[in-house]
């Protein structure tokens, strides 16, 4: 029972900015379908009486006070940037 079409895989790949080859598209269509089938087994459980949660940590209302705790550390932090210029991170020109 394939749960996902090749068009779905193409769409998801596009959203994730992945360029898939034809072979990869076939492969992932099948693999993702299998994963979804596996997850689908959860639907067999009766969850009508269970409250839905978005987290299972049990934590709630975790906040910090509004204080400035960080200092300028640009030089070190920008070492991760692919390219930089005058303190900016340099990227290919963006349209839109």
């Amino acid at each position, binding site marked *: 029972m394939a749960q996902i079409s090749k068009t779905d895989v193409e*769409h998801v790949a*596009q*959203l994730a*900015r992945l360029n898939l080859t034809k072979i990869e598209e076939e492969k992932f269509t099948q693999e993702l379908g299998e994963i979804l089938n596996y997850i689908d087994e959860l639907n067999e459980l009766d969850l009508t009486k269970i409250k839905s*949660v*978005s*987290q299972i*940590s049990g*934590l*709630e*209302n*975790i*906040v*910090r*006070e*509004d*204080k*400035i*705790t*960080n200092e*300028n*550390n*640009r030089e070190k*932090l*920008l070492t*991760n940037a692919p390219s930089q*210029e*005058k*303190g*900016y*991170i*340099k*990227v*290919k*020109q*963006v349209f*839109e």
Partner: protein
Amino acid sequence: MTYKTTIGLEIHVQLKTKSKMFCGCDNNAEGVQPNTLVCPVCLGLPGVLPVANKQAIGWTLKTGLALNSKIAEHSKFDRKHYFYPDLPKGYQISQYDLPFLIGGQVEIEVAGDKKIIELTRIHLEEDAGKLVHAGTDSLVDLNRAGTPLMEIVTEPCIDSPLSAKIFLQELRSIMRYLGVSSADMEKGHLRADANISVSADEKLGVPVEIKNMNSFKMVEKALLYEEKRQREVLDAGDKIAKETRGWDDAKGITYSQRSKEFAQDYRYFPEPDLPPFEPTKMFDLAKLKAEIPELPAEKRKRYQSEMGLSLQDAEVIAIDQEMANYFEKTAEIVSPKLAANWIINELKIDGLVKIKPEDLAELLKLIDSNEISGKIAKDVLPQMLETGKSATDIIAEKGLKQIGSEEEIAKIVDKIISENSEIVSSIKAGKTSAIGFLVGQVMKETKGQANPAMVNKIINEKI
């Protein structure tokens, strides 16, 4: 054909907290070198843990209380995914199905008509960074990435471009009264996107989204242009395309922005790093509510009903908190109408800052008691600004006191009458409008220091 216009707005308000939404970076990026207010959290480096800013949530709830929203019992953050170089994590922490605030209303007055603008929701999210375009590159500054951003969404219920502008101005004013944002549109503290549709019947038309409006004037101009454009499309029997259009302020037109190749799909899911919230348990809501000052809509009402101001004057004063405070202090000492008139027409921003309300009141009291004329007072005000001296001192120094006694004025009137016998006889012959000329001559003789009403009265008695 008569058309019905429907506008909905989506407003983003930057909160002026000390630190960012999920990290301890300084939130005030104005005039700061690029990328100096960033850390691993707001840069989206692997393995970091965002923690929500309590003040930002508190201010959001306070805004909701001021705008009559319902505070959610359960709320959470979600990740909204898209790719853009100003979004370092590849997703924005936002709120999807459980915003902090649901519904709400803002009352505005458009040309004397009260209108209620219904809100859909208000949620909290983080701002993105800034892009600077330089030749064939784009430069990214992430100082603003992670600034707390409140998104206020209205129902599609606004009936005209003018109402949309007035609503935004009211919202800016409320944000400033609440002290949660500088709400300066030109600086991007307050940003608005609009949906506008035009239809020939009661059904909603096809909404067109408008972006890039960076001032209140631009919002009104862009919406007026778009309203007209859509009516013309319908008049020609064509259909409106559902699209996003940008506002080109230089050309004064909206233009179609290249439509996305496929529908936006943000793939929201709950932010796993931020546990959920129960806002009503986190904050003492009664205390938050008690901190809300009297807002412009209430002030407008009070200024009209209790202080006798016109709607127009009440609007001008109430929209600006500083002006309202100034007015209220001055109106404790002199009549509110006189105070309003001078604050709106004469004082200007410079005066608001440099002249104390009690000092303005001292000047106005001299007009009220007929010691000086309004004309003299208008000469005294700039001198108060310039020298910092009190009105009484300036008047004494320059001998500007109004020539007040009937006796003094009567003497001058006698002189003018004897010098203008021809005019006097024409008045006696029935040309009463010539009295104004004599009044003018007396005022000239007294260098404007006489009370014109009194001069008029005395001339009438003598002729």
